[in-house]
């Protein structure tokens, strides 16, 4: 299949966009990157994702694909070559999907940087408890669903860009609470697809500070 006309509409700080960047890099797909100003959405974005008007959007041969986890699965299907992002075994595939969906359902850290005092303490505890569930799933495996880096890892790893910001603003240590998960983060970052796709942690921290100012916090 000719790799023609692949465009990614994204915003640099989006963890969801990072998932797509990782998937495209894993498959060695060349694409045109378009940075969206979310306060002034382009007509292309509005046309390609009229339902949600959100990034990331992958445009392949003129057809839009929306929702990051759906895009990652699409990339695996459409560029059907090594490495596979999802396991071929239906059962392991179901497990990978479950954990990728779990990340979407549950990963929520906003209250750590938008609240203070008791509310912030509760938010911190809930976030750590959540990371511990993921750490439990990881166990002694190198990756979330086995020996190979894949869909579930891609779904979660971008959130690690926020760890430094959350630790600094929330005065907490994620490494102390979840050492195995932090080791997994380092392992994933050894892959070029990940290290090149993740936003810099310090840049995310500054972004968080700017957001706090914007919200009047």
């Amino acid at each position, binding site marked *: 299949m000719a790799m023609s006309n692949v465009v990614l509409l994204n915003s640099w700080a989006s963890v969801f966009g990072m998932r797509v960047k990782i998937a495209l890099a894993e498959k060695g797909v060349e694409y045109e990157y378009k940075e969206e100003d979310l306060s002034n959405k382009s007509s292309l974005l509005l046309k390609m994702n009229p339902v949600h008007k959100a990034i990331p959007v992958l445009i392949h041969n003129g057809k839009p694909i929306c929702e990051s986890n759906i895009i990652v*699965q*699409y990339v695996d*299907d459409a560029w059907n070559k090594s490495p596979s992002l999802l396991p071929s075994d239906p*059962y392991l595939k*179901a497990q990978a*999907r479950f954990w990728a*969906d779990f990340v979407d359902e549950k990963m929520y850290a906003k209250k750590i940087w938008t609240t203070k005092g008791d509310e912030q303490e509760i938010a911190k505890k809930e976030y750590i408890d959540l990371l511990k569930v993921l750490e439990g799933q990881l166990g002694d495996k190198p990756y979330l669903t086995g020996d190979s880096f894949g869909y579930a890892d891609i779904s979660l790893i971008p959130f690690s860009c926020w760890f430094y910001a959350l630790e600094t603003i929330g005065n907490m240590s994620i490494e102390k609470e979840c050492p195995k998960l932090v080791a997994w983060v380092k392992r994933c970052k050894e892959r070029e697809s990940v290290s090149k796709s993740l936003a810099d942690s310090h840049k995310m921290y500054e972004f968080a500070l700017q957001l706090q100012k914007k919200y009047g916090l």
Partner: protein
Amino acid sequence: MTKPSEIKLLGAPASPFVNRVQFVLNLKSIEYEFIHENLASKSELLLTSNPVYTKVPVLFHGNKTPIPESLIIIEYLDEIEPDVHRILPTDPSHRAENRFWANYIDTKFFPLYEELRMTPDKEGKEAIKKQIIEVSQLLEDTFVKFSNGKPYFGGDDVGYLDVVLGCFLAWTKFVEKHNDMKVFDEVRTPKLVEWVKRIWSHEAIKIDVPSNETLVSFYMMLQIHKPPRAA
């Protein structure tokens, strides 16, 4: 071919998410054992088989670790029995489109019914009813696009979005009756009105549509366990 009794489904008949898995099992002629769960008093089996969400449906296949989440179960069934009534299309971009609308239906459509139940005041309810109407319009447009003149979202026969949306029809009827509204109607959403009749008479679907009595009991349980917000 999946042997009968190898597959067990833990669920509650009133749950549309359970129903949609049942529809797929029927379409694929997969025999299974249905284990009835009482959601008002969750069983040890549910708590241990789905510790993360403690929700139904949960699929058990032989000795494997149980699989929760209806959409994940459906894709799993499609992968283990691909040659009997394929549910998702094989083309990557069509698969992505189907998944996109399933996500939309589950996150933007069905939750409105619960929101309607939880909202105490008339003004609040009217606002949600308005949202439901808008969403139903979008679903009509989606049906027209996907069906392309054929009877179902899946084309000639029931496909992914037919089961994903079709499972909500019993609750839709319930909500319409209790809120004096029409979610799908002949003027706004004519194609979906025809589709609803078709789905309701489909062999693989009609046998597992819950009765109004089942929904009423479930609704009463919800009103007690998760009462509407205070006005």
